[in-house]
């Protein structure tokens, strides 16, 4: 079974040279630590920055320079700053190549829910609805089951939707799966030591298993 760090590490392998990437809050943020050496990637932070750098050294924090998770960060050579409308303009115009975000639920037709639990939790969608409605390529990073032990990969989402038919790939602590255009979670890889039966038990939606399913590799 993978840790959150390992989920992030596995997702980082999907990032290609020359990509502009938007990372959501939570596990997606960790992906920045594992971008393969030797490739050039620009991280977009939707509060208005391209070229997000690492956290500042102690004592060098700047209250005016934060990321979308409100964390203090730095810029890099070649960074640019812009306003919120332009930030979502470049997202809507599909200039951003890859979006990685968390989810509470994903359905087998690619719907995603991650912003609201009616009557219990209302944090808001932030930029997630804009991102999922426009991104060319979206990967969801999440736990396979919720804290109550219920599958988060469902035939149909039960929570209010963030977007419809938009998720193409999911990486969890158990598996890497593609969401097929015709519906269903196609199992691509399993975490080391995790059986297909266990993944099946943890997946409420339609799981498609064809041929040998290799273990996930992080190198």
């Amino acid at each position, binding site marked *: 079974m993978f840790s959150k760090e390992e989920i992030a590490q596995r997702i980082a392998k999907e990032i290609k040279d020359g990509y502009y990437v938007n990372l959501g809050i939570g596990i997606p943020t960790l992906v920045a630590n594992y971008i393969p050496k030797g490739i050039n990637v620009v991280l977009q932070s939707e509060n208005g920055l391209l070229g997000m750098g690492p956290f500042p050294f*102690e004592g060098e924090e700047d209250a005016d*320079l934060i990321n979308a998770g409100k964390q203090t960060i730095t810029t890099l050579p070649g960074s640019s700053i812009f306003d919120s409308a332009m930030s979502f303009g470049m997202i809507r115009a599909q200039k951003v190549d890859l979006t990685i975000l968390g989810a509470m639920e994903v359905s087998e037709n690619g719907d995603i829910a991650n912003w609201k639990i009616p*009557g219990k939790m209302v944090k*808001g969608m932030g930029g997630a609805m804009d991102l999922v409605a426009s991104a060319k390529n979206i990967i969801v990073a999440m736990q396979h089951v919720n804290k109550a032990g219920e599958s988060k990969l469902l035939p149909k989402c039960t929570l209010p939707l963030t977007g419809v038919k938009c998720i193409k790939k999911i990486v969890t602590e158990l598996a890497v799966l593609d969401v097929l255009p015709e519906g269903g979670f196609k199992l691509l890889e399993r975490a080391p030591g995790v059986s297909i039966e266990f993944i099946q038990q943890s997946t409420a939606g339609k799981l498609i298993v064809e041929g040998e399913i290799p273990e996930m590799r992080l190198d």
Partner: protein
Amino acid sequence: MINKVVSGAEEAIKDISDGATLMLGGFGLCGIPENCINALVNKQVKNLTCISNNAGVDDFGIGLMLKQRQVKKMISSYVGENAEFERQLLSGELEVDLIPQGTLATRCLAAGYGMPAIFTPAGVGTEIAEGKEVRNFDGKDYLMEYAFDADYAIVKAWKGDTAGNLIFRSTSRNFNPVMAMAGKITIAEVEELVEAGELDPDYIHTPGIYVHRIFQGKDYEKRIEQRTVRKSEG
């Protein structure tokens, strides 16, 4: 040049009365108009509709106005950092319109550009699409969202001049320039106010035509929400 300077936050907001619709710049606590928010708290105006990406935290920013029940309705995209906000929302004391962040920014932009509405794919097929016009362009559905209509926009800039021209610093720019364009009356508080002519026209982010009142703010706290650092090397 037309002089836009007022003495301070109290004068800048003096005609804001109960029931007004306000836009407030900032993302989280970054780039919020601290002076004007404090003045609004002191003035105790009520029944406000506030358009702002976030709602501050419990003891800073718009959170201070929420605590005093000055806000009737919030229009925001993300409110996760404010427990009092979530409590008022879940209990029904506060009316809340949660909208996608890009929609929020672009509805400001539309107002400042004189366009009545925009079309965006954000929220298509979700509960926020209920009751909204959907138009299909080239096989893809878009929601029609209206330009905001705000009585006042209140923004924070780094530098400004007496003619109302503004320059923002780093990611504290965020919603400030688009909101500055969108208010019937726009109030700008700045960290450094200079004479017209001292700012290079090529580097102005918001032209003074959009700004009606400007003043040099004071005692900026610039609170950091998530202080994240790395250790020095060696």
